[in-house]
């Protein structure tokens, strides 16, 4: 993984020192809140319902055991003993005190972490496939390009005051696990017919109050030209993006209003200028330098078959189920990708205690080549685990209550913090997730339902990605009462789809029953091994609507 050089250390330390002084001036009254707010947002500091909230960047979701231990320490010493992993592969702490945040940032800097540009109208944390560097059939490690983009976009003077926030995601596999088509810029790393790597760029995707699927406006951009291309997109956005209305300020609105072809032409014109100037050409030496940070770890030469692993599966039904559900084949023989679910039955999706973070750090250090990933679906990944160690890892995860065997199943939900924490929310999301989780707790029932994603947002800002859940739940305020609107048919991947509203919203007391009605309808209609989304695409909304509303 990437290691800070002297410039990185200097920049992050300077930012810590700068923010410490800004906090001091705010506390003394020398800075008003109006002047301070954009500064604190650029350092990931929000004011939420109960307290400040600090969002810490985890670049492309990659963190070491040392860094995870630091996050555990921050949870313990500066917060209330837990953190929340987010849908942008970051972590949030819900109870920091402003007066102590500079100290938190210093502690983060000591382990090469920061909270820079995790909020504000700037380019945010670049997210990527959580299986980067581990999955079979990957074109190249998407974290290489993600790191290049991170370095290009951090403190970029031209793009620090955009019309609105800007989110970039990178995928390098035919299966898109990074939801790139729902980002302001989504990049698919591909090979051209000659086998050379190129970057296909989608622009104008997004969720929120007006969801859009990104438009492919650049195909197989050469690696040398990618920064020139991205800068062209940003310049077009910066020039034409609306600043008069924050609800219409995202690039998705610009693309929608001027059209895909006009956007392409504007970007191509700007791209041509950038290329002619040459200063944004990515030197091969620099690309090689960044690439070297993401070289494969020192894998052992292992056989794919492992007798002890097979024996453990045969002798322990729970372990066997967990292997089938939570592990993924690794590109290296004898290794496995392990998904660590942060969705215990009845638990808070995405939350982890300091004890769990410390424990996971120990496991990663001992058994996973010292690396942990955060997924945008609020789970964690141990990307490189030897098959011979898998049962031991499983047992240790059990001891930490981190072995819920539900990846991709109905209880593996995304839920935003909602009205329990968030200043913007209209309704609570976490209690609904907990009730759904408990309703469908039975492993047998979950297996019978199969792959089904539920995503819950507490307001139209859609931080819970409800638009792209197979079942989406949107909390709304109906005359002071929390109500829940349902959508069906969303998917975040390469077959991107925005969910369709079923009809009138449900109350807190009836929404889980409605979910169960939807699930039962699917089970009645499914053919063979169809997943929910396949059945929905075959039969459409009508049968579900009929069963929900009569």
């Amino acid at each position: 993984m990437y290691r800070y050089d002297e410039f990185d250390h200097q920049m992050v330390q300077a930012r810590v020192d700068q923010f410490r002084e800004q906090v001091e001036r705010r506390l003394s009254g020398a800075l008003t809140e109006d002047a301070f707010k954009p500064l604190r947002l650029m350092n990931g500091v929000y004011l939420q319902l109960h307290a400040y909230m600090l969002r810490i960047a985890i670049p492309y979701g990659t963190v070491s055991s040392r860094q995870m231990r630091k996050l555990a320490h921050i949870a313990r010493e500066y917060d209330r003993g837990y953190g929340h992993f987010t849908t942008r592969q970051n972590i949030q702490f819900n109870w920091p005190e402003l007066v102590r945040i500079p100290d938190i940032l210093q502690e983060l800097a000591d382990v090469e972490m920061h909270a820079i540009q995790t909020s504000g109208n700037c380019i945010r944390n670049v997210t990527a496939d959580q299986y980067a560097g581990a999955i079979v059939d990957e074109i190249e490690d998407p974290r290489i390009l993600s790191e290049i983009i991170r370095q290009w976009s951090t403190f970029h003077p031209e793009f620090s005051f955009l019309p609105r926030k800007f989110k970039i995601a990178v995928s390098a596999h035919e299966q898109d696990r990074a939801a790139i088509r729902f980002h302001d810029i989504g990049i698919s790393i591909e090979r051209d017919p000659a086998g050379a790597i190129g970057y296909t760029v989608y622009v104008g995707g997004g969720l929120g109050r007006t969801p859009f699927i990104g438009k492919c406006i650049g195909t197989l951009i050469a690696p040398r030209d990618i920064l020139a291309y991205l800068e062209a997109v940003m310049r077009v956005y910066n020039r034409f993006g609306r600043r008069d209305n924050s609800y219409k300020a995202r690039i998705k609105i610009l693309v929608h209003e001027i059209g895909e072809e006009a956007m392409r032409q504007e970007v191509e014109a700007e791209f041509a200028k950038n290329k002619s100037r040459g200063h944004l050409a990515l030197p091969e030496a620099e690309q090689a330098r960044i690439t070297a940070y993401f070289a494969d770890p020192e894998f052992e030469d292992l056989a794919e078959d492992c007798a002890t692993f097979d024996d453990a599966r045969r002798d322990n039904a729970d372990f066997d189920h967990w292997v089938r559900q939570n592990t993924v084949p690794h590109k290296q023989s004898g290794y496995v990708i392990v998904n660590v679910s942060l969705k215990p039955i009845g638990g808070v999706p995405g939350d982890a205690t300091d004890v769990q973070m410390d424990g996971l750090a120990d496991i990663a250090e001992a058994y996973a080549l010292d690396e942990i990933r955060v997924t945008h679906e609020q789970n964690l990944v141990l990307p490189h685990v030897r098959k011979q160690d898998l049962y031991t890892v499983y047992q240790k995860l059990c001891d930490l209550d981190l072995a819920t065997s539900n990846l991709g199943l109905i209880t593996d939900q995304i839920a935003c913090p909602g009205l329990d924490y968030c200043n913007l929310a209209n309704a609570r999301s976490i209690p609904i997730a907990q009730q759904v989780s408990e309703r469908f707790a039975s492993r047998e029932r979950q297996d019978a339902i199969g792959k089904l994603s539920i995503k819950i947002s507490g307001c139209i800002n859609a931080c819970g990605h409800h638009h792209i859940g197979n079942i989406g739940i949107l909390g709304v305020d109906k005359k002071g009462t929390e109500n829940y609107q349902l959508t069906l048919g969303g998917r975040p991947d390469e077959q991107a789809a925005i969910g369709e509203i079923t009809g009138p919203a449900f109350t807190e007391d009836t929404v889980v029953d409605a979910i169960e009605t939807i699930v039962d309808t699917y089970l009645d209609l499914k053919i063979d091994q169809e997943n929910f989304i396949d059945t929905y695409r075959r039969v459409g909304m009508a049968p579900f609507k009929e069963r929900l509303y009569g």
Partner: protein
Amino acid sequence: MAQHATKGARFHAITANRLDNGEVVYFHAQKNWQSDIARAAVLDGADALDALMIEALSSRFSQTVVDLYAFAVDDPANHDANAPVHPLSVREIIRAAGPTIRLDLGKQADAPRA
């Protein structure tokens, strides 16, 4: 300044967050910021609200808080004298107590158990 007021509400209270630590606080009739919602001043009618709001927003009282606003509450006469202040919105109820999914967090964790 946000106002989370229920349309047509008669009674309001004033709230903010402490600048240094983000704690939720309420403006007291004796013109200071209190942690306990039970000690919040309840203003009957728009004139009373405006008058106290001017005080709360003055530099004397606003320097130590952030995001100050008024929110609707129920008629205190409908409630026990020891706990007279009841927000009308779910948001303010949660804000006064703490997250509903973690009863060990927020002000509810410090409240004396029944």
